[in-house]
């Protein structure tokens, strides 16, 4: 089946908590924008992280950060409100609906309602449903692994639950967009550490099995030393100083641990990409450096 606008592309960025999803998502979005594509970077949830990074207020409606580059913060309630308004079209009833105390309690706790509304918003440009979403790329700084899969399962769950009616219909269409390889792509961010690597591999197979979607794996914070292991071992052999021994030990352990985890990742996904460890504590500087960094293919390791 064809959708109204198949020129838009949705890019989901996920991975274990703490691997640098947001920075990678922003770097990717900045790169698209620089290449001339009109790009919207989307944060999910109630609080904006990028507000602190770019020092601009980030809201539901897109904020222009630089040419072609916009950021939005989409949380459940405004997405749901927009959805309800689009169906009901009478502002007074919509207000009544959201002001009703019991309905508020229900919406707060009701399973999958808000998640569906968020996914509905994300896919609304492609489906040309609701207010126009005029972008070439929608880059989603998505939830971490477990919550992300739960989010993706919501439309199918709802479509199975209510076959008939508007919500069932919407859920079915959202689910279909999510499964289309020409419309949605997935990137899993990981680190050269044991837990993030195993979680990335697991998440990848879940995506394939449940959504029929493959994902690119990006290993972030790969330490690229100017010194080889041999160099470091040489320095270590030639010193009696405690500090030097400890530091060279630290370098060797870091390099070895990294090698082990990268080869673990490589045996499951030979084609993964890497991004360098950025020696900066400033969010924006990390993003800008990541944007400039070359995609090092796994083969270099």
């Amino acid at each position, binding site marked *: 089946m064809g959708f109204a606008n198949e020129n838009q592309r949705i890019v989901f960025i996920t991975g*274990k*908590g*703490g691997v640098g999803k947001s920075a990678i998502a922003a770097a990717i979005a900045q790169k698209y924008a620089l290449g001339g594509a009109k790009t919207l970077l989307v944060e999910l*949830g*109630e*609080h904006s992280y990028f507000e*602190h990074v770019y020092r601009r207020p980030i809201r539901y409606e897109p904020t222009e950060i630089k040419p072609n580059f916009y950021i939005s913060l989409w949380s459940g309630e405004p997405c749901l409100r927009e959805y*309800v308004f689009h*169906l009901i079209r009478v502002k007074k*009833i919509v207000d*009544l*609906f959201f002001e*009703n105390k*019991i*309905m508020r*309690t*229900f919406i*707060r*706790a*009701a*399973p*999958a309602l808000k998640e569906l509304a968020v996914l509905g918003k994300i896919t609304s440009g492609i489906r040309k449903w609701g207010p126009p979403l005029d972008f070439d790329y929608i880059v989603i700084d998505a*939830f*971490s692994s*477990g*919550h992300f899969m*739960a*989010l993706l*399962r919501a439309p199918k769950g709802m479509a199975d*639950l*209510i*076959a*008939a*009616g*508007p*919500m*069932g219909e919407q859920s079915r269409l959202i689910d279909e967009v999510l499964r289309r390889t020409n419309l949605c792509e997935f990137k899993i961010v990981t680190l050269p550490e*044991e*837990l993030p690597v*195993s979680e990335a591999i697991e998440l990848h197979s879940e995506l394939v099995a449940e959504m029929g979607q493959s994902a690119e794996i990006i290993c972030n914070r790969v330490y690229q030393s100017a*010194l080889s292991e041999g*160099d*470091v071992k040489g*320095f270590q052999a030639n*010193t009696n*100083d405690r*500090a*030097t021994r*400890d*530091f*060279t*030990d*630290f370098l060797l352990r*870091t390099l070895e*641990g990294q090698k082990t985890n990268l080869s673990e990742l490589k045996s499951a996904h030979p084609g993964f990409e890497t991004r360098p460890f950025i*020696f*900066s*504590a*400033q*969010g924006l500087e990390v993003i800008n450096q990541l944007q400039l960094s070359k995609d090092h293919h796994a083969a270099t390791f």
Partner: protein
Amino acid sequence: MQQLFKAHKVLICVGSGGVGKTTLSASLGICAAQLGLKTLVMTIDPSRRLKVALGVDSSTVKPVRVPGQKYSGELWACLLNAEEIFRDFIINSSTNPELAQQLLKNRLYQQLSTTLSGSQEFTSLLQLTKITQEQNYDLIILDTPPAQHAIDFLEAPEKIRALFQDRVVRWFVGEEEGSSFIQKIIARSTHIVLSALERITGSTFMKELNHFFATVRTVQAKISERTEIVQEILHAESTGFLLVTGFDEAKLREAEALFGYLDSNKYHLRGAFINRAFVPALRPLPAATEPKLVAEYAQWATFYQSREVFFQDFTEKWQARVPVVRLPELSQDTSGLDGLEVFAHEMGSAYTQQNGHNNVSTNHKPGAERVQPR
């Protein structure tokens, strides 16, 4: 740490995802067991290696004694399985077994018991109350689910309780109507709102919803009762919250928001752990060192030093209230019980040091030498 352990029956580790809560919970358990306490660590979704170290697997919902331990106390561990706990709870607390079975089969309930709606948070607290009441342990350490925001964890029970409360149920099954003027107005607006809900969801959904609320009644009483006990336990003097945070600007900002939240909601915050805060191996190299190695050192040292700024702000703000403990980045993997013991040891000494520092409240000024904090 002995003081901390002795003063509490429950310690809850909170913090956002990826900061090392689970490892820290397990290490706290080891410290407590080493100090002679019978300790239970309740974990959620640990890594494969941590499971092996603790001797638990997905089928062990009941606490198991961690194998290979030589402590003066005892270390026990269990895994929290949200779906199973929720189901057991419904079956055991229902006033009508038949309705309970119907509720379990309701498709809205099935959606409710997935991770999306906070059921993991809710059930881990259900389990906590159950185990606390059984009084089998000197200390229980609770690891919390990997939420986007740690605050979700504390708000989930109330969210779920609200959904099950009588007023909501009566409203949805249409028992709110009466004959007074006010009641009629309320009934009218209820009607508008409900038909709006039907328009956006469809009649099948409404039927399922109605069935859900009709069957929910069977567990209603127990849910409110349990949520009250949960709140009692969470606010008890003997329940302490430990904040675990990562070491970057965003994580620390989140941690601060959480601090404020815990404070204003009268939870007892007893400490903050900043994980991976420093590398013990980074100490100034002698002057005669090979320039290439010096350059490499400078890169790492400057990096950790620049992060110090955020840490100093955070510490200065909170250390008068609770110990703020920095934990080292350990480059060897903390695998097996031995590996965890190494981490537990680091944590124990960092805590003791910081707690002492806290009590005498000396104020260190940030400086270049602070890259190596000892």
